[in-house]
């Protein structure tokens, strides 16, 4: 299928919004993406005609809802080329997925004297759960540093990984856009006997994913960043690891039996899905996966390469030294997320002026404070592009930036 940008845009109703006579320019998809009609309609229709609890009751509607819910699992498994659908666990977001790994795998496998390796570009979701556990268990966290153009600095990676139990890293930085060499990093981890945990939040929505080709052990990501609904996240893990792990949340559905004296766990994936699940959200997620699959993830990636190239060129041509774009300039090494500093104007003020033109960007630390300290900034402006963004929107960003410059000339 060839990629038809105007048709894609027509699939997303919010992109037709006009505020104060100006169109919406949504450049915050790295934060959370917009949703196509296919997803909205699937959820609405399910709520109007088919809503029912899953995996509990046995009547036809409940069986149908269970099929849709389990069908979503199968679709997600196929989307990331997971060997088995049972290895896909629904959580509430990627954050819960990473907490699940830290808590269940980590508390069973990490204790004093052990160490894990993280990178300097991690999102708080891949830092704080480990810090919480480290405070309890007394293991050490080691950090992979960055090069000056925002890539992982692998000079001392063998030293860092020696004796480490796990290497947990993002596949793509949510601040710098850096795409990390996931397959190579998984191999390095395994060479040192560490498991490889991949934060796929920023990569899975934007390029093809093959967890078997990566040879990863766990991959976490979120529905809401991949044109799917909020309220549902994903953890894929190797069956043998998931099987050996203690449960995370306790309650209904995750048990095989409960007596006053104790309980026994259900098999995968129920073991990690306590309580009533995000049912309508799974239905919406299935529609999102179908939608992205029909578009083709290679096409999504190609479109984003083009728009990234155009954005880098446009911003540099128009603003020269007045703009400092963090991270790599090589579109083979980065995704369509651009963080930058613009003159001396504070990111919050930049975003305010942009907002007057309905240009939606995020200004702040992007939940990556350790990385921000490395950049020497306490905030950046971040414009992030997705399959529905256009070169015209890059121009709208540049026009609004120019105005911010005029307004705030110090």
């Amino acid at each position, binding site marked *: 299928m060839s990629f038809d940008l105007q048709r894609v845009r027509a699939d997303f109703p919010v992109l037709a919004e006009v505020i104060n006579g100006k169109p919406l320019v949504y450049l915050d998809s790295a934060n959370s993406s917009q949703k196509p009609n296919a997803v909205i309609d699937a959820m609405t229709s399910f709520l109007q005609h088919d809503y029912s609890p899953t995996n*509990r009751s*046995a009547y*036809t509607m*409940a*069986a149908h809802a269970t*099929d849709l819910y389990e069908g979503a699992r199968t679709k997600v498994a196929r989307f990331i080329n997971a060997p088995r659908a049972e290895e896909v666990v629904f959580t509430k977001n990627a954050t819960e997925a990473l907490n699940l790994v830290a808590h269940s795998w980590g508390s069973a496998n990490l204790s004093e004297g052990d160490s894990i390796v993280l990178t300097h570009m991690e999102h708080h979701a891949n830092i704080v759960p480990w810090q919480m556990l480290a405070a309890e268990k007394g293991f050490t966290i080691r950090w992979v540093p960055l090069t000056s153009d925002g890539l992982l600095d692998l000079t001392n990676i063998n030293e860092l990984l020696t004796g480490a139990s796990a290497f947990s890293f993002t596949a793509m930085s949510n601040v710098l856009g850096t795409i990390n060499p996931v397959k190579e990093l998984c191999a390095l981890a395994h060479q040192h006997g560490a498991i490889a945990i991949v934060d796929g939040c920023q990569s899975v929505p934007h390029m093809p994913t093959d967890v078997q080709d990566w040879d990863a052990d766990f991959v976490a990501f979120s529905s809401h960043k991949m044109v799917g609904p909020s309220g549902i996240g994903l953890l894929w893990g190797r069956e043998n690891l998931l099987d050996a792990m203690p449960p995370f949340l306790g309650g209904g*559905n995750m048990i*095989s*039996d409960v007596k006053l004296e104790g309980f026994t766990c*259900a098999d995968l994936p129920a073991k990690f899905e306590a309580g009533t699940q995000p049912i309508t959200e799974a239905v919406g997620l299935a529609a999102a996966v179908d939608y992205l699959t029909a578009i083709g993830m290679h096409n999504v990636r190609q479109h984003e390469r083009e728009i990234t190239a155009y954005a880098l060129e446009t911003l540099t041509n128009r603003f020269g030294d007045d703009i400092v774009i963090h991270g790599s300039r090589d579109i083979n090494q980065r995704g369509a997320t651009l963080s930058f500093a613009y003159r001396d104007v504070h990111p919050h003020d930049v975003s305010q002026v942009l907002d007057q033109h309905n240009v939606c960007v995020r200004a702040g630390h992007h939940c990556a404070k350790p990385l921000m300290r490395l950049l020497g900034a306490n905030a950046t402006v971040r414009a992030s592009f997705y399959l529905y963004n256009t070169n015209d929107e890059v121009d709208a960003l540049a026009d609004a930036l120019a105005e911010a410059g005029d307004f705030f000339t110090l």
Partner: protein
Amino acid sequence: MPGLEDLYREIILDHYKNPRNRGTLEPPAVRGEGHNPLCGDEIEVFLIVKDGIVEDIKIAGQGCSISQSSASMMGVAVKGKTVENARAFIARIKHMLSIDEEGEPDTSIALGDLEALTGVVKFPVRIKCAVLSWNTLAEALDIAAE
């Protein structure tokens, strides 16, 4: 929509009302135990395996008509058969119930009364009821082989 008679064939109701091989066996018989966490059904399968033959089988537990009759028909089907036959039968039944397993089952195996369970496939929620005893038998055979 499939009707009740698709699910509840006469032979199923007969095995439900008159279950064969009900009971328990003392060690050295081995024991397998299965739960359906969805509905609370429980099953116990007791086996005496000697020289590769399922010499005796008894079945205990509680459950719905489908799980109980499936268990009863299972006992009849495997009693006196070789372990190998029993395992092939498990694979055959799972295949019939549309449960994906690795490898191809031997579809030449005659199903006998168990043919009646084909209707269950139209009622996906009940497949777990039908298969519970077979999974439990597989577990008991594993224990016996240890």
